[in-house]
């Protein structure tokens, strides 16, 4: 059967960047960007990728979102796409990307090629989660997610390689920051979910965002190590992310990817726990196991605020396990870790060097900056 490729372009992605607006998440920002003379970035970058795919001259059925959201770029590149859905009047909004992606997942297509930024990737998480693998053409202002190819040509290469077969799939992180806070100068990235991406580590942005682990063995080793060290009766507070999900898998319990789950005696006793749930469960001894966010290095205060300063203080700094693969450590600027618990005195106690678990019997030491 001919390979079925979906195409979704978020035509307004990246508009804020050239005029210093740090994103284009709301209609107001897009309007402001137009006033400042911003040009859409995504159509051109999508065109570069599509051009490289056309040049390869391989048989594929292209399913494009309507109008500027893919159809126009596809036609410009020389494709005759099948159009999914009806054209949108005026600027597109997130719901248009979501609808297009859902329709493509229902067909289903074999792979979705999309052009956009972190907001677009979040829309895809919401629309299709892990149903269909994706390749991202980087075209946004914010590129904290690990799911993008490093550039449009690399995106084209990923599509072509995946079509050839023999390429496996990895779940990579979709992150975004609070644009309002970003405009105020504060960066606060949050993990929104995962998309499935063909595993071609040379071509995925990953290392900069710290999402790609070439070394599945290390992740499995971390999981076994933490699981083996678990003591009866002790409460384990497992933070978000694939590293902690691997730990949960090892002991045979379900894990919410983005939430904090509580485990005791091999049983999950709370799912997606909030601060109050954790405090209620916290009697006697407990261990917190967390992983830093790739690329930026926070292990408290970003995406796991439910593990509050009060909880951290009660558990005790000596009962906190920080785990990350060496690749993730390498993705951090100067190998620095960060905490932002909201309690400056507590943050200061983290300051200095900290052991980080990197595998079954392997550690490293990283400086914690507050």
């Amino acid at each position, binding site marked *: 059967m001919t390979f079925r490729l979906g195409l979704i372009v978020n035509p307004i992605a990246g508009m804020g960047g050239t005029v210093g607006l740090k994103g284009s998440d709301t209609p107001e920002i897009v309007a402001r960007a137009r006033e400042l003379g911003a040009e859409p970035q995504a159509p051109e970058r999508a065109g570069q990728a599509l051009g*490289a795919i056309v*040049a390869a001259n391989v048989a594929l059925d292209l399913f494009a979102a309507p109008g500027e959201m893919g159809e126009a770029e596809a036609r410009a590149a020389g494709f005759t796409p099948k159009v999914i859905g009806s054209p949108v009047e005026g600027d597109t909004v997130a719901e248009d990307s979501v609808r297009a992606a859902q329709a493509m997942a229902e067909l289903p297509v074999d792979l979705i090629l999309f052009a956009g930024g972190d907001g677009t990737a979040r829309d895809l998480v919401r629309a299709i989660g892990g149903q269909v693998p994706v390749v991202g053409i980087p075209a946004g202002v914010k590129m904290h997610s690990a799911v993008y190819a*490093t*550039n449009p*040509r*690399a995106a084209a*290469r990923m599509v072509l*390689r995946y079509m*050839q*077969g*023999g*390429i*496996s*799939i*990895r*779940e990579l992180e979709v992150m975004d920051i609070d644009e309002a806070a970003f405009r105020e100068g504060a960066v606060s990235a949050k993990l929104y979910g995962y998309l499935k991406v*063909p*595993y*071609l*580590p*040379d*071509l995925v942005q990953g*290392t900069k965002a710290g999402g790609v682990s*070439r*070394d*599945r063995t290390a*992740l*499995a080793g971390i999981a076994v190590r933490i699981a083996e060290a678990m003591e009866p009766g002790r409460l384990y507070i497992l933070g978000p992310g694939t590293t902690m999900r*691997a730990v949960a*898998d*090892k002991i045979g319990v379900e894990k919410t990817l983005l939430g904090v789950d509580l485990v005791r005696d091999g049983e999950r006793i709370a799912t997606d726990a909030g601060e109050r749930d954790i405090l209620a469960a916290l009697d006697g001894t407990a261990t917190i196991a967390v992983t830093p966010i790739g690329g930026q290095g926070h292990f408290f205060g970003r995406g796991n605020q439910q593990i509050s300063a009060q909880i951290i203080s009660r558990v005790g700094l000596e009962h906190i396990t920080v785990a990350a*693969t*060496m*690749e993730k*450590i*390498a993705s951090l600027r*100067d*190998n620095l870790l960060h905490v932002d618990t909201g309690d400056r005195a507590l943050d200061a106690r983290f300051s*200095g*060097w900290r*052991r980080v678990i*990197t595998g*079954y*019997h*392997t*550690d*490293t*030491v*990283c400086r914690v900056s507050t």
Partner: protein
Amino acid sequence: MSTNKTGFQAARWNEALISELSEEGARGIVPPAVDAEIAAAVGDVAASLPPGARRAAPPDLPEVTQHRVLRHFLRLSQMCMGFDVTTDMMGTCTMKYSPKAHEHIARGAKLADLHPLQGVDSLQGLLELMYRFNRIMCEISGMDEFTFQPASGAQGIYTNACLIRAYHESRGDLGKRDEIITTSFSHPADAATPAVAGFKVITLMPGEMGFAGVDALKAAISDRTAGLMLTNPEDTGQYNPNIRQFVDLVHEAGGLCAYDQANGNPLLGVVRAGDTGFDMCQFNLHKTFSAPHGSLGMGCAAVGVKDFLRKFLPRPLVAEDGSGGYRLDYDQGEGIDKIRAFIGNVHAVLKAYSWVMSLGAEGLRAVAETAVLNNNYMLTKMRGMRGVTIPWPANNYPKLEQVRYSFEQMFAETGVTSHDVIDRMVDFGVQHCMPSHVPMLVPEPFTVEPGESLTVAEMDQMLAALQAISDEAYSDAEKAQGGPYNASTTRIDGDVPEDPDCWAFTYRGYQRKKPMWTSENRRKIERHDGGY
């Protein structure tokens, strides 16, 4: 637009596996039948075997004619690169020319006909050579005793880990001291082998100079510290100038220090591990000492220790017998008994001995100096190449025998990766380069180690190939991304080389795993193993 002016085209035989060449009844050699008289006298030779040792069915060996076997292996050899065929600067591997005179000596009957179990009386020449080379290695390294038992670099490093374990065990400290410290740019075996020996391993990350700082070491040291195991210069070609302080701090904490000198080429006659305070060290005779490196065979690591660790070395050691001859000392000591059978890959020792004797002390220092000079010639030229950067620009110390370059800029500007460059190099008739050991901390890494054997013309040949690829990346990126075109094989993509499900070391393993390799099945496996 670049062009490949070399006209190079590798042999491409599409050769099947030897087992796939099998044809029932085909024979390479048909031995004459056993003489009837002998057969009658001996009877059924298999009858004396216990049933458990007897095969129910003959082994599934390939049946191939003699000339087809010859063609098979000659074809494979034609599809190989290496130092004897072309310019080879495989980083971290210390590729150098291995003089053929030494090969001839090693293949001669005087060595080849020896058996490891024959009496020492008839092994005196070999033992004398081993003993003399032991003293030479002590002089080169500042150690007091060597063993040549380990058959590979990693096995040598493992020996060091075992020596550290034996030392602490002898003092009743092993339960308490269970951590080895290493650095991220040391050879991965400095982390892997202590793990095999039962230690936990702490890896220090590089600071802004590209090597681990003293503060990081202090943060890792504790009363659990059993030892320090590292390479210096590291795989980046950078020498950690804090090394003496590292050794002192670990000693103060009660740990031992092991110097992995797989990167020892630039240090011959310049720095000695013993003088730097190390308690033990290891050299790869198949790298620095010119016993050939490659094909994962015939390796030999020389492991040296200070006197107080002599009793822990694997046995037997070659010793003087007190009457002008030599003996094998099996005295058990408190040691690790054996790393491998007998006294080592003696032909590698013989080649290394021949190499050292042909150079002399001054010659060895010239090796180190020439290797460093060649490397800095390459560095100077590579600096000006478009798309190439040198990591840690803050570090102005000279590089020693190799450099880990980065194609990060080229990748950002053209989409051409270091993997692409490496795959394309072969089209220019030169051996490809090593990107990096894992974990790959330098983006788009590329490690070049020219060694001392190469002439300026040979280095210029390599530079011309790299320059052509750089030009091509900026003018025709697609072409640069598609290599190799003229090589014996096409490129292998994705995670195939690092996925254990794709590895097959035997024909049976190959047959068992082959059905898993269709793209659909690989995707299914991935979903099934999602637990990672």
